[in-house]
């Protein structure tokens, strides 16, 4: 053997002297950051290996949906200039949110059963699916830019704001996913319900239709009280409108995402033990 000597690390673990669980989990994530990197790499590699087109599907998928929606709705909404860009910018934001939040909720992913056998920070698998989502999002920007160039839609410097918008949305998705997966510990049906709720949520958020068609009191419910409205705006403004979002929009979105994240993280880390207690 290479190194026969035992390394006396003297790492003492005492179940009765533990810090706040939210902080413990955070330290664990830092310590296992390389695992999260490996998990993301694995997700992307295995996806690439399974199909002929591999990673290209990540780019083709939103493109296909966009194409269909454009064909179906462009007559209806022909007031919207550059409709393909309008849809695509909203769609990639929505897809990111839908995928990462349901991945966080669905504890049945690969590795979930490992949590019953070895110590791994419980959020590691959730964080890795978030990382995969971020990579997918960035990949789907490639066809978006291509389409913009092809139809000669103005590509502005404000585009550089997109990663910041993505980060704010990612924090929200993580928080919401953790919050719901805590509820799912006690009430598993929420996983199914969430899938249905997502579809409804997508239709009340202005992704395929222009904001202008909603007027009156409905606006309050569909836009003002809908967190996704702000996040989609945050991504769409720098791409479609070519402007950096106003401070008010950034502020509201950031506040919503941070509060959701803190609540989700604390609730999840407090209750995650129950996940393993259930046999």
């Amino acid at each position, binding site marked *: *053997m290479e190194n026969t000597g*035992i390394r006396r690390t003297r790492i003492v673990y005492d179940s009765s002297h533990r810090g706040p669980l939210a902080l413990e989990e955070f330290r664990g994530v830092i310590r296992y950051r390389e695992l999260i990197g490996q998990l993301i790499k694995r997700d992307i590699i295995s996806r690439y290996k399974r199909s002929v087109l591999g990673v290209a599907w990540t780019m083709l998928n939103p493109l296909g949906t966009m194409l269909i929606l454009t064909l179906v709705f462009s007559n209806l909404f022909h007031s919207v200039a550059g409709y393909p860009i309008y849809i695509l910018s909203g769609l990639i934001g929505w897809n990111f949110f839908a995928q990462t939040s349901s991945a966080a909720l669905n504890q049945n992913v690969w590795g979930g059963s490992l949590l019953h056998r070895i110590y791994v920070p419980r959020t590691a698998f959730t964080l890795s699916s978030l990382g995969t989502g971020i990579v997918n999002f960035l990949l789907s920007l490639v066809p978006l830019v291509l389409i913009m160039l092809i139809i000669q839609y103005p590509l502005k410097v404000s585009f550089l704001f997109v990663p910041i918008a993505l980060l704010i949305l990612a924090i929200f998705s993580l928080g919401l996913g953790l919050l719901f997966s805590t509820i799912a510990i006690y009430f598993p*049906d929420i996983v199914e319900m969430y899938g249905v709720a997502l579809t409804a949520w997508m239709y009340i958020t202005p992704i395929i239709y222009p904001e202008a068609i909603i007027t009156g009191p409905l606006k309050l419910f569909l836009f003002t009280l809908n967190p996704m409205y702000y996040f989609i705006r945050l991504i769409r403004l720098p791409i479609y409108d070519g402007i950096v979002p106003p401070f008010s929009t950034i502020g509201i979105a950031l506040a919503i995402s941070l509060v959701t994240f803190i609540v989700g993280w604390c609730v999840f880390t407090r209750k995650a033990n129950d996940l393993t207690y259930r046999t």
Partner: protein
Amino acid sequence: MTPNPAIILENASVKYRSPEESYWSFKEFAINLVRNKVKMKDFWALKKVSLVVEEGETFGIIGRNGAGKSTLLKLVARVLAPTEGRVVTFGNVSPMLELGAGFHAELTGRENIFLNGTLLGHPVREIKQHLPEILDFAQINGYIDAPVRTYSSGMVARLGFAVATSWVPEILILDEILAVGDEEFRAKCYHRIAEFQRNGTTTLIVSHDMNTIMKQCRRAVWLEHGTVQSEGPAVDVINAYHNSSNNN
């Protein structure tokens, strides 16, 4: 020299709980929750277990299925925190996964070494250093860059064992893993475990095979319904266990 403790359990208890009835609607669940009527079924998997395992010792855990053996290992491996009582471990704990449990079928053997190594908490840099040694022990040879789904179960077992034992742990957990593999591979595993023991690794072994316990362990504990039935020299504990089985 008085030996240092490696693992201490003080009145450790673990309670599993699940709702007594499943609620078919969220509304019903919420109403009952507010009325504080959600009945939970409690099940004590471990009841006030106290143990001290000394540094460098090989300690056996025996008992029937459902006696709480795995729960005890989970406490030591930090997978569970005790509901009551206290668990203290000194040193890094290397849990032995059910062989191949941490593998991803689509990835190659080499990719899986990195995935598995980081799962066990090792930095990528160290895994790279250990790579030649892992490959040498696992004897996968030409197939290391083929997907793991093409491996035989023996190959998966060898690779899993090679990764898990490439680092000398201070506390090693062996949960029935040596039941797989051929004779030659088993001999190699025992050889490596013996090497660990000479280096001062504390080992916890769970097995239904009394010969393994008898051969490997100086002391053992017998668990029954989550409580300690007998603890002491392995021979005595095994005899007590056998006597009770014969009487039933």
